[in-house]
C-alpha cells in the first residue's frame, strides 16, 4: 500500500467565459441578466424552421483578445461544428461549437499552459420544478431561452496544476486577466465564469496521467478549491485501498461539500460532430489580430514579471500588487512619489504595514479605497527611510492616516514624533538605560547579543519610539565595548 504523500495531484481546468457582447453569438437578440424569462428571443435562437446562424463579429474580436492575453496561436481559419444532443435547453438539438479547429491553440498564462480556447454558444436555462432539481423525477421543467445563444469562450488548460490551492489561485489570475480585457463580467455567482476541473492522481514522479474525473458546479473560488480538495481526497482513498478511479463526471454540492456522479443517462452521448454547413470559416485579418494585441492592457502575469525583474520585488509581494490594476496603480504612484526609496521597500509597506493597519482599523477598505493616498504613503515611507522618524513612529503615523487621512509631516509635527537627532541627548538616554539594566549589560559583555533587546526596549520606552533603532543599537554596543 502506498502512502498519501506518494500520490501527486494532476489538475487541468476548463473555463467557460460568457462574453459581454451586446448581442448573442448567432442572432441579434440582446444579452441580458435577470430579465423576465423568454423576452430576449427570436426565430433564430428559438430554432424555428429555416433559420440560419450568423457569427457575431464582436464575439470573434473578444475571443481574439483572450487569445492574445493567453499568448495563444490563432488559427488562420477556424471552423464550427455541430454537437448534436437532445435536451430542452438546446432548441436546435445541437450546439454550434468549435471542435477540431478552434480559434486559438497553444498558449500560456503564468505557469500554466493553455491547450486551446474556442467559441461556442451557451445553452438555455432550465428550471426543474420539484424536489430532485433535475430533469428526471421533476414535476415539470421550465426553459428560459434568454441565455440560450450567449457567446462563450471555453478555455482548456493543460494538466499543469498540482494542488487545489494552486488551481484556485490560478483561476483567480485568469479571472483578473479576462476581467481586465473588458470582454466579460467574469462573475462566478452569476455564471458568467464557470470553472470545471479535470482531476486525477498519480504516483509522484510518474509521467503517465491517471484516470481523470470531471468536476462541475463549483460556483465560487472557495468551492472550486474545496471541491477539488474533496475529489483529490476521494481519489487518493480509492487508489490507496487498491481500487481504480472510474472516469465520470461529478457534481459538487456546496451545501455539504459532497460529490455526486451525474446520471449516466444524461451523459452517455454520441455527439455526432460534423462541420456546421450553415457557417463559413473564421479567418481573422491581420488588422483584427493587431487590434486585439494592441488593445491589451498590461495584464497581471506580465505586471508581476515586470515587478520581479525590474523592481526587484519578491514573487509573492509582486503577485499581490500586480493582480488588479487599481492596486498596481496605487503601488506605482506611491513608489514613484518616494524618491530615493527602493520600490521593494514601498511594496513591503503597501502589502505589509498598510494592509495590517487597515485590518486593525477594522474597516473593509483596501489600500485603494482607504483614506491613505499613495502620495501620503510615499511621504511617510520617505520620512522613515530618511530616518526623520523611526519605523515605530511610522506605524503610528500610518494608523492616524488610516483613521483620518491627512499629511504625514503634519501628523509627525502634531504628535511630536520627529526622531531624536541630537546625538548628545540620545547618548545620555542610552547610558541611563545601561545603568538601569546591569544584568543585560553583563550578558552583552560576555557575548550574548540577544540581551541587547532589553536595553533597546528601555530606550524606546523612554523616547516613545522616536529614537532610530539602528543608532540605539550602535550606541549600546559602542558603550559596552568601550566600558
Amino acid at each position, binding site marked *: 500500500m502506498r502512502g498519501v504523500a506518494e500520490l501527486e495531484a494532476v489538475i487541468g481546468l476548463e473555463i467557460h467565459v460568457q462574453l459581454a457582447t451586446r448581442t448573442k453569438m448567432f442572432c441579434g437578440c440582446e444579452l441580458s441578466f435577470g430579465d423576465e424569462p423568454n423576452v430576449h428571443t427570436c*426565430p433564430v435562437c*428559438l*430554432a*424555428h*424552421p*429555416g*433559420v*440560419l*446562424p*450568423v*457569427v457575431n463579429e464582436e464575439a470573434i474580436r473578444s475571443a481574439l483578445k483572450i487569445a492574445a492575453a493567453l499568448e495563444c496561436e490563432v488559427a488562420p481559419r477556424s471552423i464550427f461544428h*455541430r454537437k*448534436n444532443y*437532445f435536451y*430542452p435547453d438546446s*432548441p*436546435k*438539438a*445541437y450546439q454550434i461549437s468549435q471542435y477540431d479547429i478552434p480559434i486559438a491553440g497553444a498558449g500560456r498564462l503564468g505557469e500554466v499552459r493553455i491547450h486551446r480556447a474556442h467559441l461556442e454558444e451557451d445553452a438555455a436555462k432550465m428550471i426543474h420544478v420539484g424536489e430532485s432539481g433535475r*430533469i*428526471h423525477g421533476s414535476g415539470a*421543467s421550465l*426553459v428560459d431561452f434568454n441565455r440560450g445563444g450567449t457567446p462563450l469562450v471555453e478555455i482548456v488548460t493543460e494538466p499543469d496544476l498540482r494542488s487545489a490551492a494552486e488551481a484556485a489561485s490560478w483561476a483567480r489570475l485568469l479571472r483578473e486577466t479576462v476581467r481586465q480585457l473588458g470582454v466579460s463580467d467574469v462573475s462566478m455567482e452569476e455564471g458568467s465564469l464557470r470553472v470545471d476541473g479535470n482531476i486525477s492522481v498519480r504516483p509522484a514522479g510518474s509521467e503517465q496521467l491517471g484516470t481523470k474525473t470531471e468536476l462541475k458546479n463549483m460556483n465560487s473560488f472557495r468551492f472550486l478549491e474545496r471541491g477539488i480538495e474533496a475529489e483529490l481526497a476521494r481519489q487518493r482513498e480509492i487508489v490507496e485501498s487498491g481500487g481504480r478511479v472510474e472516469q465520470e463526471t461529478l457534481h459538487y454540492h456546496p451545501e455539504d461539500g459532497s460529490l455526486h456522479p451525474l446520471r449516466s443517462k444524461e451523459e452517455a452521448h*454520441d*455527439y*455526432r*460532430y*460534423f462541420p456546421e*454547413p*450553415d*457557417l*463559413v470559416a473564421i479567418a481573422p485579418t491581420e488588422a483584427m489580430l493587431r487590434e486585439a494585441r494592441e488593445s491589451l492592457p498590461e495584464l497581471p502575469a506580465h505586471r508581476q514579471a515586470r515587478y520581479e525583474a525590474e523592481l526587484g520585488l519578491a514573487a509573492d509581494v509582486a503577485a499581490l500588487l500586480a493582480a488588479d490594476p487599481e492596486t498596481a496603480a496605487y503601488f506605482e504612484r506611491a513608489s514613484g512619489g518616494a524618491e530615493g526609496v527602493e520600490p521593494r521597500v514601498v511594496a513591503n509597506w503597501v502589502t505589509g504595514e498598510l494592509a495590517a493597519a487597515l485590518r486593525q482599523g477594522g474597516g473593509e477598505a483596501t489600500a485603494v479605497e482607504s483614506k491613505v493616498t499613495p502620495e501620503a504613503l510615499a511621504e511617510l515611507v520617505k520620512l522613515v527611510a530618511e530616518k526623520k522618524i523611526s519605523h515605530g513612529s511610522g506605524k503610528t503615523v500610518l494608523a492616524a492616516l488610516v483613521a483620518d487621512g491627512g499629511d504625514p509631516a503634519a501628523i509627525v509635527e502634531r504628535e511630536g514624533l520627529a526622531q531624536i537627532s541630537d546625538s548628545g541627548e540620545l547618548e545620555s538616554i542610552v547610558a541611563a538605560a545601561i545603568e538601569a539594566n546591569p544584568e543585560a549589560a553583563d550578558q552583552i559583555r560576555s557575548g550574548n547579543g540577544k540581551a541587547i533587546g532589553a536595553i533597546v526596549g528601555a530606550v524606546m520606552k523612554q523616547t516613545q519610539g522616536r529614537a532610530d533603532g539602528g543608532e540605539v543599537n550602535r550606541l549600546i554596543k559602542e558603550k559596552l565595548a568601550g566600558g
Partner: protein
Amino acid sequence: MSDLLALTALQAHEAMVAGDLGAGEYADAWRAAAASDELNAYLWRDEGGDAGALAVERPSIAPVAVKDIFCTEGVPTTAGSRILEGYRPPYTATAVRRLLEAGAPILGKTNMDEFAMGSSNENSAYGPVLNPWDPGRVPGGSSGGSAAVVAGGLAPWALGTDTGGSIRQPASLCGIVGLKPTYGAISRYGMIAFASSLDQCGPLTRDVSDAALLLGILQGRDPCDSTSVGLPDAPRLPDREDLAGLRFAVPADLAREAIEPGVREVFEATLARIEALGGEVAEVALPHAEHGISAYYVIAPAEASSNLARYDGVRYGMRADSSGDTIEMYEATRAQGFGAEVKRRIMLGTYALSSGYYDAYYGQAQKVRTKIAADFEAAFAEFDFVVTPTSPSVAFGLGEKTDDPLAMYLNDFFTVPMSLAGIPAISIPAGLAEPAGGGPELPVGFQIAAPAFGEQKLLDAAYALEQAIGFDAAPSGAPYPPVPGKRATGTGGEGGG
C-alpha cells in the same frame, strides 16, 4: 380570362409596366385558376383577402406559387410534414421577401415531398400531387407541387428548392423549365433545411426567359445567410440565338443503358440540334460522377438527421399526447409526426455520423464530393457545358416505385452530381417520349450544367436551344400557348419523340 393566363410571367410583367394590364385583374385571374386545383398541388392558397405580412404594395410582377418549404409569416408552412401541421412562422424567408419587395404577390404554397425528401411527391403527408399530363402519374419531386401548378396552368411560375434534383427532375417530368442556381446564389434563410450544404432555391417556369427574370429577383447576398454570395452580375434576359463556338460535353460514362429508350432518343436528337446551332458536342470523362448517388445518400441524410432534430414538439408544430417524461414526449411526437422516408433518412444520417463510422461514411462521402467537383472543374477547363438527360425516365406511375427506395433514388442519378459540385444546372423540355411501358407521350427534360456562377451563359445557351426546340406540347386544358417566349419564331413542333 384564359388570354391573361396565356401570358408568360415576363410578358405579363411588361404589360403591367406598360399599363396594358391591371395587376389586380391579372392576380385575380390566377387566384381563380389556382382555386380550380384538382392535382392536390396547393396546400394553401391566397383567397384574395387580407394578405397580412405577405401584402404587396404595388404589384407589378406575376404572382408566384411558393413551395411549402419557405417560411411565410402568419401563413401555414408545413414542408409537407405532419410534424409542422398548424405551424405559422413568425417570419418570412428572404427569397419570399424579395418577391414581395419586387412586387410579386404570393399565390399559394405548393405541396411537396416531406422535408423535400423524395422524387415523386408521394412522400407528402398531405397526399401525392398528380401530374397534369396524366393524373395516374407522379409529377416528380420534391418540388412536385411547384412543377405541377406551372405545367397545369394553376400558377404562372413557382419557387422550388433543389437538393439533389428537386427542381430539375419535376420540371423534366412536367415539361417545364427548372433552374438550380449555383450554391450561394440565393439566400437559404427561411427555407426549411433538408441538407444545408446542398439546398438551393430556384425558379420553375414555363420558359427560360421567365427563369432569368425570377432568378434576377431572387439572387443576391443576404446578411442572414453566411453561405450566400449572390451572382457576380444581375442576370439579364437571355437573347442568344445560336450556340456557335460553345462546347457541350456528354459524360462518357453516362449510363445509357439505365435510360428509357424514348428519353435516350430525345436526348440524342437534342445533341444533334446543338450541333445544328453551331455548338460542338464531345464526350468528357467524369469518372467519379457514378458515385454521386452513394455520396449524396450519406451527406444529405447526415445533415438532415441534425437539421430535423429540432422538431421535438416543445416550441411549435405538432406535439403528441404523452403521459411520460420529456424524452418520451420527443419520441412520441417524432414517431407520429415524421413519415417513413424521413425516418429512414434520419436513421441513415444518424448512423453515418456516429462515432466510429464517421470516417467510413461521412468523411468518405465528402472526399467523393470533392472528387466530383474536381471532375467538373476539369471538364469546364475544356467545355462550356456538361449535358445529360435530366431524368432517366418520363413521369412514372403513382405507386410504381414507392416500395423500392433504391429505384426511387436513381431518379436523381443525373442531377445529384451538380448538386454535390454546387454548380448551376437547368432542365428544359426537349420533347415528348412514350413511357417504357407504353401509353401517351410525356415530356422529356434536357439538363445543361455550367461552371459555378455561370448562370448568364447557361441561360443564354438554354434560351437558344429552347427557341430551336420550340417545344409546343402542353397538358390538355393548360391555358398557355404551345410555343414559349414572345420572341419565339415558332417552328419546331416535331417534339423530338
